[in-house]
């Protein structure tokens, strides 16, 4: 089914535009990187707050809530721009092991990170220190996003 989708995307209008133009790809790639700076910085700070390493004067719930537009908005822009880059050669990416790894890690990171951030953002009680599961989750989230970055760069080299 995924393969059929990739095949359809390759022959679609978007697929043909992304394949045939050098500059469309460059522009989309730059948008992907700009969103990465916003998303990556905000996601890191949210997880660092869960670990008690930054913004200690604000509650972790406040930090999770204040930065949700940046992590949420950032991930949406990255997903759309990433999808457009993928449309450049969907069948080729389908067989690329780095791309497959990146997508699998992305799915897990998306669930782990946003489950934690949204849950903490909705906390009402005056909190004390972060529980162990939250600290553990924050470390997992940072490591997942980091591996996604590495896998993403490897797509062009494998």
């Amino acid at each position: 089914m995924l393969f059929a989708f990739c095949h359809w995307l390759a022959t679609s209008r978007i697929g043909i535009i992304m394949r045939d133009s050098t500059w469309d790809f460059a522009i989309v790639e730059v948008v992907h990187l700009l969103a990465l700076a916003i998303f990556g910085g905000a996601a890191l700070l949210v997880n660092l707050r869960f670990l008690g390493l930054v913004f200690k004067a604000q509650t972790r719930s406040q930090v999770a809530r204040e930065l949700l537009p940046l992590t949420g908005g950032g991930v949406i822009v990255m997903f759309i721009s990433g999808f457009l880059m993928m449309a450049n050669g969907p069948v080729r990416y389908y067989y690329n092991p780095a791309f497959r790894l990146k997508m699998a890690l992305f799915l897990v990171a998306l669930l782990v990170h946003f489950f934690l951030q949204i849950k903490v953002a909705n906390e009402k009680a005056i909190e004390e220190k972060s529980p162990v599961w939250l600290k553990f989750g924050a470390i997992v989230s940072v490591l997942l996003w980091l591996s996604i970055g590495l896998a993403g760069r490897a797509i062009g080299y494998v």
Partner: protein
Amino acid sequence: MQILLHLCQWIYSTHLSVAIRGSVWIFPIIETIHVLGITVLVGTISIFDLRLLGWLMKREPVSRIAAQLLPWTWGGFVVMFITGVLLTISEAEPNYYNIAFRIKLLLLLLVGLNPLIFHLTIYRRVNTWDVSDVTPIRARAAATASLLLWAGIIIAGRMIAYIH
């Protein structure tokens, strides 16, 4: 700029430059670390800029946000700078002719001047506007300049590889 060209040619011929260029893996690894450094650097700076613009953390004093973010911003800067120098060394001669590289250096100079001016002027009186959600116009101007310049640096940086 003949002397600068000769310098770039000499750097391009050094062992370090040849070694980074010659390996399939070293360049992309340094490049990936460079991007991660930029993410931390620009990500933390953007959050500070967005606070100056009054978009987030409005109840938190500006100076406290600055103090909390600064160690991470500097950490990102050091990583970005060291890896950036290594990448530049490996492509010193082609970079000399690369218009995107020249634009990037110019923008880096400007983005360095921006906080210098900010700290010597409006930020000196931060105690008078530290807790206000609407910051002075000059602080918002500095934040806007910072966001635009960093975006320009990322765009120019990526374009280095597209222009030959």
